[in-house]
């Protein structure tokens, strides 16, 4: 049984069909890339899976349960974590606090423990901090040492992306959705992050879905590539199959002149 199985996922915003019946599945331990031209519905796809928008139709079966329409925090608790295309950290919290917040859904101390400083509370607090530091150490020296106590907004762009991944990792997910993790990074950083994505699976045992525009990254990390266009899945398979698929080339480059059909496809270019 796949870890995540999606059938007929639909989402409409006003007159725009962001997702028009997408089927998708991913097995435990797989790394799958979702690609497609701008406006193809990739981010909407993530938003619906992570519960930020409820789907209009379709099922999202995660680990045997349909989670379609559940609240984002419930879905995170079940084990799906995500990052955002336009990095959304908590800018005024420190780096460490950003990651510690991620532990929220795995911990349980409430107001009583806090007020009376029970032993359980203190132990849990220590554990949260230790876990957060351990997660940050995944990025080597990038987010280590004095960085722990810096507010997130002083970080460089690449570090913000790393911190966002760290925060998602802190929720102890089984499936992690990365929305353009290498956007805005320089080539060296991109290579470094590509390796880290591989390590997410090998060291951490995570299953990864990644939206990516950088085809080098897509080629290097993914077991399988899914191509969306206009909210519909137009191709699926390993990188080589997909990259030679005619529909995919057409979606990215438009139809050659002289063929039938109007210019709708070029709308998003």
């Amino acid at each position, binding site marked *: 049984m796949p870890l995540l199985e999606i059938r007929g996922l639909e989402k409409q915003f006003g007159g725009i069909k962001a997702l028009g019946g997408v089927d998708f599945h991913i097995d435990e331990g797989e790394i799958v890339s979702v690609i497609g031209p701008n406006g193809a519905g990739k981010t909407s796809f993530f938003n619906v899976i992570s519960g930020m928008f409820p789907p209009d139709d379709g099922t999202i079966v995660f680990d045997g349960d349909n989670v379609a329409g559940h609240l*984002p925090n419930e879905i995170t608790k079940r084990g799906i974590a995500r990052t955002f295309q336009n990095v959304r950290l908590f800018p005024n919290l420190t780096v460490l606090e950003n990651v510690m*917040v991620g532990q929220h859904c795995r911990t349980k101390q409430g107001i009583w423990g806090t007020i009376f400083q029970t032993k359980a509370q203190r132990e849990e607090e220590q554990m949260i901090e230790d876990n957060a530091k351990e997660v940050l150490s995944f990025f080597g*020296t990038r987010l280590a040492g*004095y960085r722990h106590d810096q507010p997130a907004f002083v970080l460089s762009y690449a*570090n913000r992306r790393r911190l966002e991944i760290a925060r998602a990792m802190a929720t102890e997910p089984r499936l992690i959705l990365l929305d353009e993790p290498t956007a805005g990074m320089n080539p060296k950083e991109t290579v470094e992050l590509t390796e880290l994505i591989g390590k997410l699976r090998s060291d951490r045992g995570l299953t990864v879905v990644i939206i990516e525009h950088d085809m080098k990254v897509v080629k290097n990390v993914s077991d399988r590539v899914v191509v969306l266009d206009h909210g519909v899945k137009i191709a699926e398979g390993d990188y080589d199959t997909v990259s030679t698929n005619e529909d995919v080339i057409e979606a990215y480059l438009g139809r050659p002149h002289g063929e039938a059909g109007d210019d709708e496809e070029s709308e998003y270019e």
Partner: protein
Amino acid sequence: MSLDPLTRRWGLIGGAIMAFTGAIGMLVSFDERILISPILSLGYLTLLLAPAIAGHMAARGKVSVLEEPEHDVAQGAQKGLVAGLIAGVFAVVFMLAVNPFDLSEFFPNINDRMFDMMTFDFGLGLGSVVLIVASALAGAAGGAIYGLDDEPREGVFRSAIWVILFSLFELVVSDVIEVDAIVDLIYARGGGLHIWSAIIIGALAWWLGVRYKGRRAELTQMAKDSEAGSRLRWSLIGVAALLVIVLPMLVGGIVNELLINVALFILMGLGLNIVVGLAGLLDLGYVAFFAVGAYGMAVLTSPLSPAFSPELNWWVALPVVMVLAAIAGVLVGTPVIRMRGDYLAIVTLGFGEIVRILILSDWLTPFLGGAQGITRIPGIPLGATSVSGTSPELFIYMTMLLVGVAAYISYRTQESRIGRAWAAMREDEDVAEAIGISTVQAKLLAFVTGAIIASFAGALFSAKVGTVFHNSFDVLVSIIILVVVIVGGMGSIRGVALGALILIGVLGGPKSQGLLGEFAEFKLLIYGAILVYMMLQRPEGLLPSVRRSRELHQEEAAQDAWLDKKGSFIEEPEASV
């Protein structure tokens, strides 16, 4: 010499302030309060402070971050003189305009006393000249002070502030000293410092400031060091606690009464601080929970409660009141859970009024007494005695006890799993939810915690006053609690305490007088002025929390972090790869 537009602008602003404070009668009522006998009253201080500040600002000119400001006494004095002159002329023009334009129709407080005061009792002709000269001199002084070097300038400010504090807090100081002979040495019989005591206090403040300058730097350094810093903090907390315990014994009933009001507002401020400062939910109807606490306690303890009157002991009733407040918190919180920002503020504003109007409604009048309120609420039983507002020396300890509880709750929650969840929610609600925080739970918890703390204040309030009426719970109270939190510093416990001390203790609360009765009439005006000034100059509040000041000064903080780490902010130097 051409006129600097900035000098002209500040001169006109100064003059407008002089004219306005005169027209609304502020100068005349402030004249009652003598600061230094017999030469300076609060009224004259206000009158001359306007051109002095104008002169100071004119001398300062445009502030540039990049250039080191120039400090030149003569130049500063010259600019200040011009600004003060303009201000004085403006004020005189205003006085001359009163009769031809019938300004007293609009400003009923324009009267002979105002003229006497603004002309220094010299009559309009000579007095106008005196006012202009005095204003110009005040402006020159303000400008010259700006021109001084850092050290003497700070000395002048420190001396002036301490002299003014000592004269304003005459009541507190003389209560603490108690021995009449010593009090008479410092203060004149009719109020105000003697000239020589003012000089001594000023000189002492200057000298102590210079003497301990190095020491202060040492302490700041110590506070940064973790171990010595925590020792320092604990000793400071110890001193503060000692002061809090001892002070009420030293001061008299009036000051204790004031302190009780301050403490009630600290309580409410701490509660609201959890809702607004920590969780970021702008609640403008916070007074509702105060009302629930007060009416809950009234019904449960008063023998005259109209329908249901169990006449419980205050201590027994308190947990019941807390439960009632928690229920109220859930009731208000649930419908607004999906609302954000402005919408939340408006809806909660409505809820606050709904509660007050419900008290007056036909439906609840049989239970809560409607416009008649509930009277004869007993005090807090403590051993054999019953502590109420008639014995403020004891009651203050009750309020302080609960303030301590509320402060402890705030302190603990801030740096906890819940506090982090609130902080995350305040920063970005969608993301907080996406990383697994149940915002519904977090919001309700904030509302309930805030409501319970407000109910403490309500329970104390009804035991103190002995009666509750609906009009103690109008919108203004909500607003003023919010102002206390904003001025003090959102998210900061010390800030809320300081805000309440200044606003409620000195200026006066919505229904009570502060230390200075003269302010009573003008306190909302002063609140407004303070709020505007704070929003422009120090939006994070007087004693801000770390997070809040980061939020409002992100760019500077980023620069600081960059400077701290000498460039590593841009990107780590690539050591390997």
